[in-house]
C-alpha cells in the first residue's frame, strides 16, 4: 500500500519530466508562432487538444510548459534548500540566541505572503520567470530551515554525536559526517513537497501576470489566456489545469511515499 503512493508519485512526476524532455527536441507544432486562421479549434486531429485563442497548438504549449514548470521548481527549491538547510543546521547545532534569531526571522518570512513578495519583485524588476523563482524560493526558505533544524536537534542529541565529540570531532565534522547524512532523507521529502508548492505558486503567479510573461508558455499563463474564452471554449482551461494537478499530485505523492519509505521506524522492524 505504501509502495503504491511512491510508485504513483514516481509515474506522475516521470510523465512531467518526460514531457519536458520531449519538448526540448520536438513539439508537434511551434508553441509560440501565432496562426490567425486556426483559432480556438476543439480537440481532434491534427491538433490533439485543439488550439488556443492565438491559434497555437495547446499540446505543444503544454509540453513546453512542463519544462518551465520543472525549471521553476528546481531553481526555487534549490534556492530554498541551499539557504534554508544550512541555516536550520546552524540554528540546531549552535542553539541559544542564534537559534532564536534564525527561527524568529524565519517566522517573519513565513508570515509574509509569497504573493506579496512576488508583486514587490515584479514591480521593481519587472515580471519574469526569474522574479517568480526568487519569490517562491525565498518564501520557501523557512520550511526548509525548520525541517533541517528539527532533524539536526534530533541528531545532535544522539549518542553517536556524543561519541564523535568524545573522539575530538569538530563541530564542522559533526555537521558534515553526522548531521548532514542523517537529515538528508527528511530534507529530500521536504524538497518533493516543496516542489509541488512551487509549481502551484508559479502557476498562480503566471496566472496573475506576475510570473513568466507571454509568449513563453507556462501552465499558469495558459490558464490566464484561457480565462477570456471560458464560455466559448471551456476545455482551454481544463488542459493546463489538469497538467498542474498531475504535477502537484505527483510531487506530493512522491514526498509522502518517500517519507513512509524512509521512516526508520517502519524500516528497522525486521
Amino acid at each position, binding site marked *: 500500500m505504501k509502495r503504491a503512493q511512491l510508485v504513483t508519485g514516481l509515474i506522475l512526476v516521470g510523465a512531467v519530466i518526460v514531457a519536458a524532455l520531449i519538448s526540448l527536441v520536438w513539439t508537434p507544432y511551434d508553441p509560440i508562432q501565432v496562426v490567425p486562421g486556426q483559432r480556438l479549434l476543439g480537440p481532434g486531429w491534427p491538433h490533439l487538444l485543439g488550439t488556443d485563442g492565438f491559434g497555437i497548438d495547446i499540446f505543444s504549449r503544454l509540453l513546453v510548459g512542463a519544462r518551465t514548470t520543472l525549471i521553476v521548481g528546481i531553481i526555487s527549491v534549490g534556492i530554498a534548500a541551499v539557504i534554508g538547510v544550512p541555516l536550520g543546521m546552524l540554528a540546531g547545532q549552535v542553539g541559544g540566541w542564534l537559534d532564536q534569531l534564525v527561527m524568529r526571522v524565519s517566522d517573519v518570512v513565513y508570515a509574509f505572503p509569497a504573493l506579496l513578495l512576488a508583486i514587490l519583485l515584479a514591480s521593481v524588476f519587472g515580471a519574469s520567470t526569474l522574479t517568480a523563482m526568487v519569490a517562491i524560493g525565498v518564501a520557501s526558505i523557512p520550511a526548509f530551515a525548520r525541517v533541517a533544524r528539527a532533524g539536526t536537534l534530533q541528531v545532535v542529541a544522539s*549518542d553517536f554525536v*556524543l*561519541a564523535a565529540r*568524545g573522539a*575530538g570531532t*569538530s563541530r564542522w565534522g559533526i555537521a558534515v*559526517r553526522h548531521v548532514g547524512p*542523517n537529515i538528508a532523507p527528511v530534507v529530500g521529502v521536504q524538497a518533493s513537497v516543496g516542489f509541488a508548492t512551487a509549481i502551484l505558486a508559479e502557476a498562480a503567479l503566471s496566472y496573475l501576470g506576475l510570473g513568466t510573461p507571454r509568449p513563453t508558455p507556462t501552465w499558469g499563463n495558459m490558464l490566464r489566456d484561457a480565462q477570456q474564452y471560458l464560455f466559448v471554449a471551456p476545455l482551454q482551461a481544463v488542459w493546463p489545469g489538469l497538467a498542474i494537478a498531475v504535477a502537484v499530485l505527483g510531487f506530493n505523492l512522491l514526498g509522502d511515499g518517500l517519507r513512509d519509505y524512509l521512516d526508520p521506524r517502519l524500516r528497522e522492524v525486521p
Partner: protein
Amino acid sequence: MTEPLYRAEALTRTFTTSGRVVPALAGVDLELARGGRLGIVGESGSGKSTLVRLLAGLDRPTGGKVWFEGREISALPERELGFLRASVQLVFQDPRSSLNPRMRVGQIITEPLRSRLVRRQLPADVDHQQRLAEVLAAVDLPPDAADRYPHEFSGGQRQRIAIARALAPKPDVLIADEPVSALDVSVRAQVLNLLTDLVTSAGLTLIVVSHDLMVVRHLCDQLAVMRAGRIVEAGPTASIYADPQQDYTQALLAAVPRIRSTGRDQS
C-alpha cells in the same frame, strides 16, 4: 604522593528545565590513580552519567573543578582538550544509538584517528587501515566488518564495534556508561569478559557506570556509590561488598537478587 590521574573537587552540575533548577551533581570529590578500575553505582537519576560526562569533558560543571593528568580540564576550551580526547574514550549504553547508522564500520572506528584534535596527540605515522585491522581483531570481529553498516550486526557485535572505536587511538582511560545494560543477557558475559581482557592487556584505567552491581563487581577494584548527586560511600570493591557502611549501600546490595528474579533490569 604522585598526582592522581583524575581528581575532582566539589563538582556540581545543575540543569535548568523550564525554570526549574535540578541539581544532578551536588558536590562530588573524587580521586582515581592511573590503572585504577572504578565502578560507579547508584539508582537512576543519582548523577552517575552526569559525573562521567564531566570527567570526559563532554559537559561543563556549574561548580567545582576536574583535573586530568594535573591539568584543569574544566577550565580549558575545547580546542585545548586534544590530550584528553586522545587519552579518554567512551563506550555508551546502547550501541544502536551510539553508532551512526549512515557510516560504515571502518569509518566509525577510525573517526577518533581522523579528528584534528586527536591527530596532533598521536604519532604521525599511525596507519589507519592497520590500526583498524588491529582493533577489529582485538574485539573478535572479522576484517570484512569494516565495509558494512552497523545495522547489519547484532547488539553484542555493535557494542564490540563501539569498543573498537574507543580503543582505536590507544587511550589510557576507558569510560563505559552502562556498557552491557542494553544487551541480551546471553551476550553480556562475553562483552564483559572482552572488556576485562582488553583493560588488563592494555593496562587501561577504567571507569564503569552501572546500576547492575554484578557488572561492577566483575570489572572494578574500587567502588563509588552515588545517591542524589553525591558519593555516599567509596572504597575497595571487596570491602564494600563484604561490609557496606551506608544503609543505602546495604539496600542496594540487598536488592540484587530481587531485581534479578523479577527481571526488572531487562526492561
